[in-house]
Structure formats: C-alpha cells, structure tokens
C-alpha cells in the first residue's frame, strides 16, 4: 500500500440536479496507519464524503482511491479493504449481536468457521459477550455503537470509515469507543473519522480537515488548528447589552481574534487566558463598568467556525443570520 490509504482529488457532489453542492472540490490525503479527522457541522458534507469513499455514492466529478483502488472503477476491490460504521450504516435490530456479526462476515465472503470465531472474539473484545444472544433492539446506545463498530471489523479491513461514531453517546460510552479506536490504530488500521466534536478530533486525529458548506476551510494537525484559533475562550457577561457594547472596543485589541458581542455576553478567543483576563478586568474596572460573570473555556467547534469562517456552525448562511454591525466587524478581522 502507498503512503496514503485514501486519496481524494477535487471531489464534487451535487444533489437535486445541481442545486445543492454537498461537496465543492474536496481533496484530501489520509496517511496509512493514522486517524484522520473530518471535522464539520451538520450539512457540511462530511457524510457525503465518507459515502463516496465507501463506494455508496458516486462523485459528480473528481476522483478518489482507497487502498489504491479507484472508488468508481474498482468499487468491489475498495469494498474488500474497508469497514464502515456510523450514524447511517447500522445493524439489524431484530437480530442478536452475534447474528448481525455473522451475517456481515458471511456477506464479506469469509469462511463460516472463521466468521463464527471472529464474531465471538469481537463481542468479547467490545464487552458485548453477555449481550451476544440478545436482540439488538434491547441494546443501549453505547452497546449499539460498539456493535456497529464490531460489524465494520469482522473482515479485518485495513481502512475504517467511522461516520460520527460517538454522536449522541454519554461521556463514558464515548471514552470506551475512543479507547477501542486508539487500539485499532495501534494495530495498524487507518481510520477516517467524521465528527462534530472538537475534543474528539483533538483526542483521536493526527491530522484534520475542517469542512464547511462542502469546502475545506482549514487543514493541518490538531495543534496547528488550535494555534490558528487560540487555545481558550474568554466569556464576559454584563448586566445590560449597553455595558457589553461599551466594553467590546475596550478589549478588542487584547486578541488578534474578534471579540463577539451577543446580547449581554462578549466572547473572545485568546492565546493566553489568564494574562488576557487580567488585562480585560483592569480595563473594565477602569471604565467603571460592572461585570456580572466571567469564564474561561475550551474552544468549541462553534469557536473554530467563528474564527475560520466568521459564522457559527449551525447558521445556514453567513449573511442573513447576522446583524450588519457584527458582520462588518468580523469581515474586518477575517
């Protein structure tokens, strides 16, 4: 296998006769043996990208290879080298955990005895041995995701596509799943992971691309992206929107990132939290404005998007969701 398990070049995918451009020229290279993160909000094109790479959907234009095989011209060879798990690719809820794995193993054209042994072993490894003969419908969310992942692993694929593997899971189940993914990568598996969560991408992925409206808006290592967007978010809240509006220009120069006012709250991404906080407090105090709340927090995906694109992740479009004053402010910082 080459250095790259997955290579995609200028992938475009349109829907509804070209009206919707789900992917608008995405290129990426996933190094073999790593976790590669595809980060983005709902509707950014992550799932469409995975579906194209998993040969479920064909690209409108562009090309991609997975394990060295062309996804359009050699889909069956691609399918022999991949496992897919995620929000849209699930198991049969009327079958037991074991029956599901056996079915997937047989459909991967593996020997029956091997499939049975492998299914039992995966159920063991993923803490599902006790639930092996229970109908999947009775599984908890975390168990279900582990079974989804196990189903993707029955054929020992060298490349794994995980589409939002932990969305909707409780913290403990997320941790469990992250541990499993890390062990897989230690064993040499390449993982392409899509996620809406910055902490997940940060924890698992060596390299990341950030997708927005079908385009890559940032790429690099998690550390590079963090450096690009600051490490902490300073949150200041005030009694009135007036106070917030008066403070904003006073502290705007403390970070090279914009200070955003939302009602009575100012949020600003900063590189040196404690020092900037102290500076900000001195200036607010000097202006004789009362602060009603203060917090420092880790940047969220929203903050990444705010900094990279000037709009929040969940906003459908930049222009119609923002008051004109803020729009100009952000453009000035872009």
């Amino acid at each position, binding site marked *: 296998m080459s250095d790259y398990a997955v290579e995609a070049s200028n992938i475009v995918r349109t829907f509804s006769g070209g009206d919707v451009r789900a992917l608008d020229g995405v290129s990426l290279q996933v190094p073999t043996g790593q976790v590669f993160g595809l980060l983005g909000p709902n509707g950014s094109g992550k799932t469409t990208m995975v*579906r194209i790479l998993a040969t479920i959907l064909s690209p409108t234009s562009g090309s991609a290879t997975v394990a060295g095989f062309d996804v359009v011209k050699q889909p069956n060879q691609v*399918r*022999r080298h991949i496992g897919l798990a995620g929000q*849209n690719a699930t198991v049969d809820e*009327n079958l037991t955990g074991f*029956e599901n794995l056996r079915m997937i193993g047989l*459909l991967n054209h593996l020997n029956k005895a091997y499939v049975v042994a492998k299914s039992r072993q995966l159920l063991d490894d993923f803490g599902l041995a006790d639930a092996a003969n229970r*109908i999947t419908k009775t599984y908890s969310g975390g168990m279900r995701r582990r079974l989804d992942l196990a189903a993707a692993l029955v054929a020992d694929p060298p490349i794994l596509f995980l589409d939002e593997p932990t969305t909707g899971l409780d913290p403990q189940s997320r941790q469990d799943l992250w541990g499993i993914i890390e062990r897989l990568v230690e064993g040499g598996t390449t993982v392409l992971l899509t996620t809406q969560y910055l902490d997940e991408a940060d924890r698992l992925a060596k390299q990341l691309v950030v997708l927005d409206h079908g385009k890559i808006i940032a790429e690099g290592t998690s550390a590079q992206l963090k450096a690009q967007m600051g490490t902490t978010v300073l949150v200041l809240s005030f009694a009135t929107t007036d106070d917030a509006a008066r403070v904003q220009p006073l502290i705007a120069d403390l970070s090279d990132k914009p200070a955003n006012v939302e009602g009575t709250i100012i949020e600003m991404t900063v590189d040196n939290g404690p020092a900037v906080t102290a500076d900000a407090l001195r200036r607010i105090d000097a202006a004789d404005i009362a602060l009603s709340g203060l917090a420092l927090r880790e940047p969220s995906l929203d903050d990444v998007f705010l900094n990279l694109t000037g709009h929040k992740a969940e906003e459908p479009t930049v222009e119609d969701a923002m008051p004109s004053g803020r729009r100009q402010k952000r453009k000035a910082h872009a």
Partner: protein
Amino acid sequence: MSTLPASASTHSSLRWAVSDVLTIARRNLMSLLRIPVAIVFMIIQPIMFVILFRYVFGGVIAIPGFSYVNYLIPGILVQTTIFGSVGTAIGLAEDLQKGLIERFRALPMARLAVLAGRTISDLFRNVIVLVIITGVGFLVGFRPGGTVVSYLQACLVMLIFAYCLSWGFAFIGLAAPNSEAAQAITFPIIFPLTFASAIFVPLAKLPSWLQPFAHDQPISQTAIAVRGLMDGTPHGQSTWISLAWAVGAILVLAPLAVNRYRKVA
C-alpha cells in the same frame, strides 16, 4: 485484533452471489420470526376475509353450479399471496430507512442479493401463509374438486405470479421515503385490482362497463387459473395468461428495481 487467518476464497463469484442471497433471505426470515405480532397480522387478515365473505357476504353471492366457499377460498389465496408480496416493499423501505442497505452497499457482496434475498424470503413467507389459509379453508368447508397435483399446480401459479409482482414492490419500497409511504403507495394499486376482479364475486355480477377490465386484468386471470386448477377443471388459457403476465412483469420490474437499488441514496 484478529488471531485467526481469514481463509482464502475458492468459490466462484456465482456461488458467492447465491450464498449472499441465502444469507439475506435467512436474515429476513429470522428477523420476521422475532416479531410475533407481524406473523399474527400476516395470518389474521386473510382469516378475516375468509370469515367475512364465507359467512357475511357469502349468503347473497350465488355462483351457478359452484358452492360459494369453493369459489371463495382460491380467490382469497390469490389475494393473500399478492398482499404478501406487498411485504417486499415494506421490508425494503424499512431496511433503507434504518440504514441497513447503506451498510450492505459498502460490502463486497453481490449487488442483486439484497433484492433477490428479500423477494425469496417473501416467497417463503407466502408458502407458509398459503399452507395455513388452505387449512383454514378446509375448516370452513372448502372441498376442492381437483387432485393434489392440480392443487399444487394452482399454488405454483399464484406463487410465481406473486413472486414476479414482488419485484415491482421492491421498486416501490426503494423509491418510497419510508415504510408507511411504501405501504400507502401500494394500496391504490392493489386494492382496485383485487376487488374489481374474479376473486370474491363472479364477473357476471359486476357492472357491464367494468366486466372487460375485471376479466382481463392479470389478478383475475390468476384467480380464474387457480380456481380452475383447484376445482379440477383447469382453464388452460387463463393459466398461460397468468404466467405470461408474471414473466412479463419480472422482465420489466426486476431491472427497474435493480436500477433503483444502484441509485438509491
């Protein structure tokens, strides 16, 4: 994570395709057995029809030279197998909705296997229902005049017809946004064809404008063929017409369904 070597495959792709179809068919039947309510409903509906027409409407429907129960049961069996093939649409729509088909499409399995496996498991289900409803028929006085062989021929005719039709329902199941919609779409297709037909009443009792359609349409031809074979007075022409419809249907509908499966998003 694996400790066992995967054994190399020596099977030809055709053998794997057959294996895939059987794996899917088996999964569908196992899945069906896990929902007892679904099995009960599958059988209750035709039993209700038997009781309704045998004891409620039967008294006012006179068939010259035929006891009504002997007229009715073959018709009910045809109706039941056709309703059974509607299950193909519902099953595929559910698989699609839940994301199973998404997973299947990323596997190196035969493309046709999801559809062939589904239609075959529905055929198998129809065989079971056919046996049960035949038993119910006997309980309410059904005494066909033909031989066991001609009875089995009758069953074969309607199973072939229902199987071929199920490919059309496969297309509907893949085209519908969800299983409820799939069921709703099949209703206006199936309802007029089963009721404006020779299933429950003799065609002579229908309004004259409706008679040509009711006589020539494929479900009527199948019902006439099945009734004739069960009675031991086969209508050769209707039997061949039913089989011709079946072959024609699968030749048109199977490519449509397969094409839809390839494109389904």
